[in-house]
Each structure stands twice: as C-alpha cells, then as structure tokens.
C-alpha cells in the first residue's frame, strides 16, 4: 500500500531471464526514445528530475553526467567510460542484488541510456564476487541484449555503439568506494586514489568516467518515458523520487521496500516491516549500515531523505535500516562494526590503518573494564574524529558516524551497560 516501485517495478512480476518478458512489460522503450534525443537533452532532463545517487552520497546524477560529458579530452585518443557500481557490500544493504537478480534488463537499459548521454563507448559492471546469482543474471542479460541489438555496434540503427563487460570483485568492502573500484577494474589491489580530480575528469584508465550505483541507473528509463516533471513530483523537494530501503534486524518482516523519499522511519518499520518482533520495544535503528548512524526512538517521525537526516546529524546512506530491539546491546553492535572496519581497512593511509585498530582496542577496553567516568568514550570519539579529518577515503572517515551517534543518543547505556544474561559463542 505504501510502496511505490520504480527500480523494483518488474521485480517478482516477470521472468528475469527472459528479455521478451521485459520487452512485453514496456522494456527498452525508454532506450528507443532516448536514442532519438540529443544527449544534452537527456542530461538536462536528469538534472531537472533532481535524481540523486542511490549509492549513499546522494550527489546529483544529472550533474555527474554533465561533468563527465563536458570533461575536456587532453589526450588524442579519448575514451569515455561508464561504470556501474554493483559492489554492494555495506552491511545491511541488499537492494542492488534484488534488482540484478530480478530485473537485470532494467539496469542495462538505464546504463545504456546514461552511457549515450555522456558519450561513453565502453562500460563495465563491477559486481562483487560473492553475488554469484547476480553475476549469472547480468551476464545472460548482456548476451541477450547484444543479440537483440540493444547493445553493441550501432544500437537500434542509431549510429551509437557501446560495449559493456562484467568485472568481478574479490571480497573487498572498500572496492565499493568509487576510486578503489576503478583501481580494481584496472586489475590492481583495492587502494583508493587521492581526489580531486574526480572520476568525471580522470577516472578509469585516467579517462573521463561516469560511475553510478545500480539503483540510480534503474530510475533513468522511467524519467525518460514520463519526464522529469513527473519524477520531481515524487518524494520530497530536495530528494525527489523513490528509494529502496533494506530492512533487517529485529522486525517481523525483514526485506526490501521501495517507497517515496520522505516516508517516516516509523512507517517503514511498523507498516512495511511489520513492527518489532516478539512484541518487544524499539531501541534504535542503525541507518546507512556500518558507515551509518544510530537513531533513537525520537527519530521515528523523521523524514527518510538525504537532507532531513543530515540536519539531524544522521545519514541516509545506502538505505539500510538495521533495527535493534530493547534487549540488544549498543556496545555489542559497535564492537561488531569496529571489527568490520578493522578488517576492511586497506592499509594505504596511516590514520585508517592504525586508527581502526586503535578504535577496537579502546572499545574492547570499555567492554572489559567498563567506563564509569566516560573517559573511554571521549577517547574513542576523539580518535574517530581525527580519523575523519585525516583519512584518505570514506572508510577511515566513516567510523565517526556510528561512534558519535551512539555516544550522543546512548551515552548512559554505554557507560552503564545492562548486565549480559549469558556469554554468546565460545
């Protein structure tokens, strides 16, 4: 009832392995229409639509395309690339997997239109290696799209040609960061680059590159067909359109839900995900995954879109909503998150390499000895703030988000944690 599906419009309704079913559902009509439009008009429509990146940062998708298409080519043989970021690894996030498994052609259609808009001649879909089923579905979809002339040389007789290949990750969270992802496509270790310059200017193989998230690209066909005015009418003024939320943790019906931006957290948890399981009380939701923020009960009425959350020092991120019931421990969750960052830090820059380990040591001290006067928490916060200021890439800049929000909203519990009933594991 509350759902409004754009990126998930065909999910569960058509056979995703059949290009015929996708076409019968209106698929590739947007591509046909787009190829009749001048590329600048598509870029203009996307800017007008207000579409913002669904990968986490929320940057204007149209502006990204404008920068990429306008990037000056210094080299004689200039190539523009389009890259789809399908390296979905943010804990608690599984929306891109659902799209790739259930409607791979929608992603391809959006990507081909985006490539045409920026004049890219070559594209890559970078999929994390663990997503076996997604990899199969995308590879098959690419094959059938080429067979039908939607991809390859002289697409539908338009004179525009595009080749798209699949690249696989090898189990590295960091490769979801745009520059690290490019390094990985180039066949290197997953180390981030210093920016600027941004990928729009100097990206894959040092060429202008447009990088978009899976979900973002899936909004483009509908915007082409129905217009930017229609799209802008959905969601909120500054975050138009819909968003897929991945809801997990202590809810009755965990899953993925595509709704208009601006829905309240309460509606998401209680109306769509069925409320807290076992009739327990809500304690917190970790919004945005490990690189996200804890929000308390008073945030249940907050509007789930980029700016409202930011105004309250929270983030929308990838749209992950990890719900924790009253009996779950914030300290345990923080521990789990910091272990995750410690494991995934690449080691290229010192603040993150040393910092993620320091954070773990500081937190484990709090867990072992308690922190009655709060000095442990202060040290933890200070360390994470320092990392945010000095780390090279978003990984080292992120631990401050869960740490700061946990301390801000749950300081009392962190200083005086409830006694554990039993020690888990062995």
């Amino acid at each position, binding site marked *: 009832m509350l759902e409004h599906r754009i990126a998930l419009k065909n999910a569960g309704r058509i056979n995703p392995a059949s290009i015929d079913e996708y076409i019968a559902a209106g698929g590739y009509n947007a591509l046909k229409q787009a190829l009749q439009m001048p590329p600048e008009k598509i870029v203009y429509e996307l800017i007008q639509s207000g579409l913002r990146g669904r990968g986490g940062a929320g940057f204007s998708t149209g502006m990204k395309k404008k920068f990429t298409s306008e990037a000056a080519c210094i080299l004689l043989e200039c190539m523009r690339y389009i890259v789809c970021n399908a390296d979905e*690894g943010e804990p608690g996030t599984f929306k891109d997997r659902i799209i790739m498994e259930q409607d791979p052609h929608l992603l391809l259609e959006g990507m081909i239109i985006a490539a045409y808009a920026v004049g890219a001649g070559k594209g890559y879909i970078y999929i994390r290696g663990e997503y076996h089923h997604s990899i199969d579905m995308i590879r098959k979809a690419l094959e059938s799209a080429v067979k039908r002339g939607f991809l390859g040389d002289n697409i539908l007789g338009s004179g525009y040609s595009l080749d798209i290949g699949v690249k696989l990750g090898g189990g590295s969270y960091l490769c979801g960061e745009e520059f690290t992802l490019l390094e990985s496509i180039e066949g290197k*270790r997953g180390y981030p680059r210093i920016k600027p310059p941004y990928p729009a200017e100097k990206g894959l193989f040092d060429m202008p590159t447009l990088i978009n998230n899976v979900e973002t690209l899936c909004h483009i066909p509908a915007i082409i067909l129905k217009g930017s005015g229609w799209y802008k009418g959905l969601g909120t003024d500054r975050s138009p359109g819909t968003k897929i939320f991945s809801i997990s943790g202590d809810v009755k019906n965990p899953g993925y839900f595509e709704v208009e931006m601006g829905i309240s957290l309460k509606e998401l948890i209680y109306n769509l995900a069925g409320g807290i399981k076992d009739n327990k009380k809500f304690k917190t939701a970790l919004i945005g995954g490990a690189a996200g923020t804890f929000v308390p009960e008073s945030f249940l009425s907050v509007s789930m879109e980029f700016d409202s959350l930011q105004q309250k020092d929270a983030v929308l991120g990838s749209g992950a909503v990890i719900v924790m019931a009253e009996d779950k421990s914030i300290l345990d969750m923080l521990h789990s998150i910091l272990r995750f960052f410690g494991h995934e830090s690449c080691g290229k820059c010192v603040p993150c390499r040393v910092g993620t380990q320091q954070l773990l040591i500081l937190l484990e001290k709090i867990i072992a000895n308690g922190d009655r006067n709060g000095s442990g928490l202060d040290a933890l916060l200070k360390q994470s703030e320092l990392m945010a200021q000095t780390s090279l890439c978003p990984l080292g800049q992120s631990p401050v988000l869960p740490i700061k929000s946990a301390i801000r909203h749950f300081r009392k519990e962190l200083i005086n944690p409830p006694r554990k009933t039993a020690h888990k*594991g062995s």
Partner: protein
Amino acid sequence: MDKRDILHKFPPLMENVLLILHEFQNSNPQHYLSEDDLAMIAGYLNVPCSSVYGVASYYTMFSLVPRGQHIIRVCDSPVCQMADSEDIAAKLRGHLGVDVGATTADGLFTLETTECLGQCDSAPGMSIDAQYYGNLTAAKIETILQIYQNKNRARGK
C-alpha cells in the same frame, strides 16, 4: 578446463587479472591458487609475478593454500552477529571438528567467515560454494551438511 584455455579466453591485459584468478581458482578442485598458477598468469600478462601475487593476496576470496572440496563461508557482519551468527559458527566448528580457516580431515569442507553477504533479511546466513543458506539454526546446519556428505559418499561408491 585447461589453464591455457582459461588464459586465452582473455586478452593479455592486467585489467583481466581478477577474472583470470577467479577462473583458475574455480577450476582447481582444491579451490586455491598455486605459485605455479601465479607465475603462469604473470607470464601471460607479461607482468612481474609480484604484481599478480599482490592482487591475489589482497582479495579475501582468493586462497594461496589448498582448501577443501566445498568452501563454507559464515557471514560475520553486524546484522548476522546480531542474529547470533557466532553460535552458528560455533556449531559448524563442532560439527566439522575444525576451526575457522581450516579444512576437515577428509578434505570435504573448509570453514571460513565472510563479511556481509547481502542477505540480511534472512540472517544468520552462510554460503557453501555459490549456494546461499539463510535463517540458519543448529538443526538446519546439520541437514545442510548432511546433503553434501551424502553426495560425497554416493560419489565414492
């Protein structure tokens, strides 16, 4: 598939190294990359062996030591931990008689942990090779392992 055939599926460019490493590892019954493999790939790509080793040793899905016939990867991410994935890992350790990172004596399973598998709506979860299993319980684990053990026994006969 012969290793030479794998190499010749790809143009000899460094950008294909991850795809080649995946295929080499998948074609090996012990699911790992040997020193000879790395040298062979480096030779084909015309890069120093250290470049290929650098990539293979960075990504957690690649192993440089022999592993079992099936790779069990228990999700260790925050959502699964909240759903007591540590109990699941403990159960697996008990059933298999090995620690995380080790291979069973019969060479059938290697037990590993992994970061988020993107299946958080069915936490706790794990994968065995390319197959995912969610909403795990102690009883469910036993049934799942039995399937692989039975298959192996049938093959032995």
